[in-house]
């Protein structure tokens, strides 16, 4: 240090340890997995590299159901999280007054409890003889022997719950930044509430909507814990397949191919969504959420 390093070299010296770590333990593993995904063989005979692109087509056709389900569940959870989160973020940003910080704290409180245990808590809540199911049976929404646990409902509910704060925080950040005078101008110009909301508030909060939906959708599509704990193999998502192929069946080429297909599909979704919602909104807030 001590100024002896040439000025031009200093930033690279500062970058080296952090980026070196990411290079060795993130980039190289991914590259190695790409190599792995093109191997052929069985666990007994070992796997050898063979430019086996058929791994990809086979993985896609064998597990198209789980892929479709992952994106369906993640999409549903994102939509529900938006419907739950937007009004809450709106109230915190515009109505909460001095309760604002306390309410924001309440939003992130679920993160203070271990992910797996939060999910187990839903297992408790939705269990067959639990309060919720009993009540719904009495009201008649759930049939006498019907259940919530181990269904699509419980899995989507769990995913929504676990990623909801990721939706609310960016929504809040973009709503809070809106200049209230713009809304007042809208009312002064005889805009009805609905007009002001749809023409001023909502467009201005789009960066939050884009960031929130992506932060919810991306981890949700790769999730397998909710399907495992709150569902059955009928609810399994692609994450379940990757993890069991890799850790239980030691079918590394298929697991590797599935991983890359998942990332490619997710990238496609992100690009399409960015196209629809506007790239500016995407890049404007990413990671820069201020207090």
């Amino acid at each position, binding site marked *: *240090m001590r*100024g002896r390093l040439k000025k*031009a070299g*200093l*930033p*690279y010296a500062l*970058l080296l*340890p*952090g*980026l070196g770590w*990411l290079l060795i*333990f*993130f980039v*190289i*593993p*991914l590259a*190695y*997995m790409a190599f792995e995904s093109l191997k052929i063989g069985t666990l007994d005979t070992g796997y050898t590299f063979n430019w086996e692109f058929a791994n990809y087509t086979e993985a896609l056709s064998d597990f198209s159901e789980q892929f479709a389900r992952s994106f369906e569940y993640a999409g549903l959870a994102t939509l529900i999280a938006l419907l*739950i*989160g937007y*009004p809450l973020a709106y109230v*915190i940003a515009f*109505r909460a007054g001095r309760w604002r910080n306390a*309410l924001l*704290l*309440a*939003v992130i*409180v*679920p993160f*203070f409890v*271990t*992910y*797996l*245990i*939060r999910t*187990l*808590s839903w297992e*408790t*809540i939705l269990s067959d003889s*639990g309060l919720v199911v009993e009540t719904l049976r009495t009201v008649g929404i759930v049939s006498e022997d019907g259940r919530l646990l181990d269904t699509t409902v419980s899995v989507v509910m769990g995913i929504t*719950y676990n990623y909801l*704060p990721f939706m609310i925080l960016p929504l809040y950040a973009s709503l809070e930044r809106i200049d209230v005078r713009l809304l007042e101008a809208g009312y002064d110009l005889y805009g009805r*509430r609905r007009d002001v909301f749809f023409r001023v508030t909502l467009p201005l909060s789009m960066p939050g909507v884009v960031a929130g939906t992506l932060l919810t959708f*991306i*981890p949700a*599509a*790769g999730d397998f*814990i909710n399907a495992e704990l709150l569902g059955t193999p009928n609810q399994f998502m692609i*994450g379940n397949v*990757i*993890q069991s192929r890799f850790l239980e069946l030691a079918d590394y080429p298929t697991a*590797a191919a599935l*991983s890359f297909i*998942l*990332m490619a599909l997710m990238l496609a979704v992100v690009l399409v969504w960015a196209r629809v919602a506007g790239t500016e909104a995407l890049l404007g807030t*990413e*990671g*820069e*959420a*201020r207090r």
Partner: protein
Amino acid sequence: MRTRRKLLDGFLNVYAGLALLYLLVPIAIIIVFSFNDPRGRFNFIWQEFSFDAWTDPFGGPVPGIGDALATSVEIAVLSTLVATALGTLTALALVRYEFRGRAPVNFFIFIPLATPEVVLGAALLSLFLNFSVATGFSTILIAHIMFNLSFVIITVRSRLIGFDRSLEEAAQDLGATPWQTFWLVTFPLILPGVISAALLAFALSLDDFVITNFTSGSTITFPVFVWGAARVAIPPQIYVIASMIFLVTLAAMLLTVWQQRRAERMASVRPEPA
């Protein structure tokens, strides 16, 4: 018109209240059920109030919970220290210097965050298997440092933007060496950002299951323990530990907020001459 508006306001508040309830009820359930005295192996149905699990948090029908927690804390502390140090240096380079390749690096640090955890774990295990690295404590640590780095870099970077460089120049004009300038001026100024990054890294490490599960070998962290236990039994002890982690995190959070407010108050009175 007036009443309709009031009705809408009321509806909105009730809706927001229900959303908050949805967020908080599962957490309340965990705390309440940590006081349950369940019949059988699963803690799903309320039986009766009991302090048993709280007085014996590391016991219960499934042994090993205390060791698992200790391992988790150890990994969290170590990975936080390394990731925070390396990440802070990277963030400093990204905000403070113009250099060739800055834009791609800024973009690159988001990629690990956008990669599904299951893919991160699988990729790392591919590497370890290929080079016959035995998985265990050290591979978990490597993995946790890896996924914490991006979070640290982004957190510290967002705090560094808007950093007043003239303070450093003033120190150098007064004859401070670059080393002194860093430790006496720069570091105290960026410390709040570094502390938030470290807290985040600690919490993420303590919480991680997916990547840990791929890289743990036979080492058992608290989430791995919970995963293994969840298939055979869910003793209330698991909820006790979760409640403890919850309370400690909440306390740490409130303490930092309070500390930062105090720092802001002190900073805001400084310009006035004594």
